[in-house]
């Protein structure tokens, strides 16, 4: 199994290198950093534009392969991912934003999965009973709430709470207050900022796992081996938990693992509304500002997270299902 995982990791590493380089060529042919300077008022003289672009290795008058070689050598030798057309370091941007994003989405992802799976199991065991129908209806509604609507509702609710309590308990914007000192204070401050975005992401996201888990479990509740388990003397609830759940959770685990990259770079709307400077907003900004190196770095990051998700799902499925364990 270890050997198999190592082989998979190697395969994914190659994939990441390939995808990143391909993105570099794509981004270089579609994004035009020169345009950033041409819009300047007063106009910047061409030699100055060229000098700037050349300094950041973005000059389209140089051969693409030259630029690519400089770019890739800088990464390999110095781990330097280049700069934006304005000269800001991509490394600096990504380094802070990864942690902001992680803070923003990881807690929400864990909660989304737990709540979704738990509701799926609960409702599947009570198929067509009142509780099942009510919870399904609720999930149908939450699934259809657009993120901005939910985010604004959360903001309004947060402000109402703060007003009612007479002090700021939940922050509605930003990832942290300026000037917070000490670890405990920092943690508390972070949590205060995190509550509303997390609620938004969980409410709009859990229903997918609820429906998936419910459907998968219902397929397995009727399985012969669950009947065997009940025939041994297990109550229905125990038989479902011990025999139907382990088999039906496998596709959910795979789905969660592969959704992580999407969550990291896809929470643009929520990040924008709550004013968090995460990877999602960076992704949009780099593209709109012709930031070739930034866009490629985001793509590389996405590839890495996808690889981590895929390997994780291999490990989890292998742990859950003896049939796919490879020697």
């Amino acid at each position, binding site marked *: 199994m270890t050997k198999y995982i190592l082989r998979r990791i190697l395969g994914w590493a190659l994939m990441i290198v390939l995808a990143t380089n391909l993105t570099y060529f794509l981004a270089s042919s579609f994004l035009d950093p020169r345009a950033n300077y041409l819009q300047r008022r007063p106009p910047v003289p061409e030699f100055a534009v060229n000098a700037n672009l050349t300094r950041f290795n973005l000059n389209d008058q140089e051969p693409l392969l030259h630029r690519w070689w400089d770019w890739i050598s800088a990464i390999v030798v110095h781990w330097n991912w280049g700069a934006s057309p304005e000269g800001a370091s991509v490394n600096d941007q990504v380094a802070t934003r990864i942690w902001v994003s992680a803070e923003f989405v990881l807690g929400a992802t864990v909660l989304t999965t737990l709540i979704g799976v738990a509701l799926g199991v609960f409702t599947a065991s009570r198929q067509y009973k009142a509780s099942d129908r009510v919870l399904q209806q609720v999930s149908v509604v939450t699934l259809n709430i657009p993120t901005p609507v939910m985010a604004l509702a959360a903001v309004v609710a947060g402000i109402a709470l703060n007003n009612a309590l007479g002090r700021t308990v939940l922050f509605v914007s930003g990832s942290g207050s300026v000037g917070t000192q000490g670890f405990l204070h920092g943690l508390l401050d972070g949590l205060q900022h995190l509550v509303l975005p997390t609620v938004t992401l969980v409410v709009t996201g859990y229903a997918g796992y609820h429906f998936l888990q419910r459907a998968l479990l219902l397929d397995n509740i009727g*399985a*012969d*081996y*669950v*009947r*065997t*388990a*009940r*025939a*041994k*003397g*297990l*109550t*229905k609830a125990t038989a479902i938990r*011990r*025999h139907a759940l*382990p*088999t039906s959770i496998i596709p959910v685990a795979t789905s969660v693992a592969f959704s992580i990259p999407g969550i990291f770079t896809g929470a643009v709307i929520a990040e924008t509304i709550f004013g968090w400077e995460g990877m999602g907003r960076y992704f949009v900004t780099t593209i709109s500002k012709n930031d070739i190196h930034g866009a490629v770095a985001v793509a590389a990051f996405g590839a890495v997270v996808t690889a981590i998700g895929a390997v994780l799902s291999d490990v989890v499925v292998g742990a*859950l*299902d*003896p*049939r796919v364990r490879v020697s």
Partner: protein
Amino acid sequence: MPTTPAVTRSTVPSDSHLRGTPLLRVEDLKVSFPSEAGTVDAVRGVSFELHPGRTLGIVGESGSGKSVTALSVMGLLPDSARVSGSIRLLDRELVGLTDRQLSSVRGNDIAMVFQDPLTSLTPVHSIGKQLVEAIQVHQDVGKIRAWERGAELLDLVGIPNPAVLMKSYPHELSGGMRQRVVIALAIANDPQVIIADEPTTALDVTIQAQVLELLKKAQAETGAAVIIVTHDLGLVAGMADDVMVMYAGRPVERATVDELFHHPRMPYTLGLLGAVPRPDDRSGAPLVPIAGHPPLLIDLPDRCPFAARCPVALDKCLDNEPALLEVHAGHGAACVRSNEIVDGAIDGAPVFPLPEIPPGVMANVPREQRNSVLVVEDLTRGFPLTKGAVLKRRIGTVHAVSGVSFDIRAGETLAIVGESGCGKTTTLLSIMDLAKDAGGRIEFEGIDLSTANRRATRELRRRLQIVFQDPMGALDPRFTVSEIISEPIRAFDLAPAREIDGRVAELMDLVGLDPAHVDRFPGAFSGGQRQRIGIARALASEPSLLVLDEPVSALDVSIQAGVINLLERVQHHLGLSYLFVSHDLSVVRHLADRVAVMYLGRFVEYGDVDQVFGSPVHPYTEALLSAVPVPDPAVERSRRRILLSGDLPRPTEQQTGCPFASRCPLKPTLSQEKQQRCTTVSPQLEETADGVDHRYACLHR
């Protein structure tokens, strides 16, 4: 020859009902399910008693309510089921208990063995974990002790290397092994009642014999009472003390096994017994199908539910539903005419008259003078075993068929029998493929396939047709019957457009379907009728050879008899040849003229069906034949079963020597020297005597 004597059943007098308090007493059990068409009354008043150490067989066709009865005793019906009546275990009432209360009974007092061993074990838990769970649910023992006890149980059910097997997962075990594990689970807590629901239906005959023997052993070990639910009358004859025949949700006849098989009093029972082919019957008399289909169990009118299919129904049968009344002590039947029925006849006229099948057009032509339709010589087919995801390396070969030769003459039926995985289907598909790449030579109607051009190949396809096992899957659900049957006629341009409708009607009439139903879809027909559509489709292109791949194994016995008779009638009428593949030796005995017994891709015995079945020579054929249950309790009791050990070996290695050597019951009785020959010399098919159509491949017979 090491034979295991059949475990003799306790010779309890037939009036056992009078003895002591019953272990389990079911009274007026009724189960219904809501459905979109209305309430389905699946069980409509079942009563029986079960005494310690006795075995009750519940027999019936699909939909008769036998499995629902078993599941209600276990309390494992779906939540939507409505149950009334009484099920008492000693003095404890089980109907109306909650799931939690019932869970202390299930597995502890009443245990169950299910039909399909491939799906009845949880795939993601080890065998050991599942056994330990079963033990710890009811017994207060530590994990280590439970693990040891689990290994003991595996040992008890005849699993080699129990300590290793405890750590295995279900997918690593064969079907027979898994059913042993299921039985081990069932007897883990010494239950008083074991319910076996079609315990061997999914297994091969030799494995079935092992499992049945094991069930008897488990019963002897635990002293439990057993309920066997099955459609197989042969199995009941061999296992049960008492039998209850169910029809349309009610018991229609109940008696001790001898009484029921030898003096049935209800026309339905008579019909069932007449509809089953017997492996030991050489008369070739036609089977007796029961006309029509079981009724839908929705809003049944108050009359005998069997009356519509009963050849001796009277007007009074429609007055009300007859109750199960005692004909004499210990024998009940639900029929107003049960007192008139003596030895299957009323006033000397049989209740089910034998259907007439006219003699075949080829009947008077000796085999030597008939043309060969299909000649297969040294057919060999292997499949590569590969490893690696991108660059596939060949790491071995599955030898599916190795060196098989046979011929089929006009108007005769050759059957290939063998257990699953023996290569019979591959043989058949290689012929259907008209495969040029298969090793060996295939000659069809005098044309060698390897030299046939496209035109000739197309003509061969027309002359060679197949009928599949699963009548549901083989017909396109979006085609009408007319489209299905006429497709080959159009494809081969066999008739002008205006004559096609007439041709379709003619074919439907030939296979016993109402030509008025041509515009219906397959979904509107029952399984037996669908198989008839499949046969009509195959006949539409006027073939000379029909390949039949388990054509009746998916059908209930009473329906199966009709399809078998149809196949015989069609063959006699059209002079067709059949290549027939089956694992059911009774059907083979009935339908085939010649038979080939296949093991690991080779023929081990081959010849005239009466020769091979009547005086088998090869130890494998002997074992196979002895494993088939005969629907006659007297015969079953006196039979000696040859139990084969283990499963079919994997066909991945090229065998040296005899392929059967690893399981052969004859080999251990031989001298060292002879055993040596078994593993080094590959036996060839040899004739038994001059002029007798019977060959076998064994070095020491």
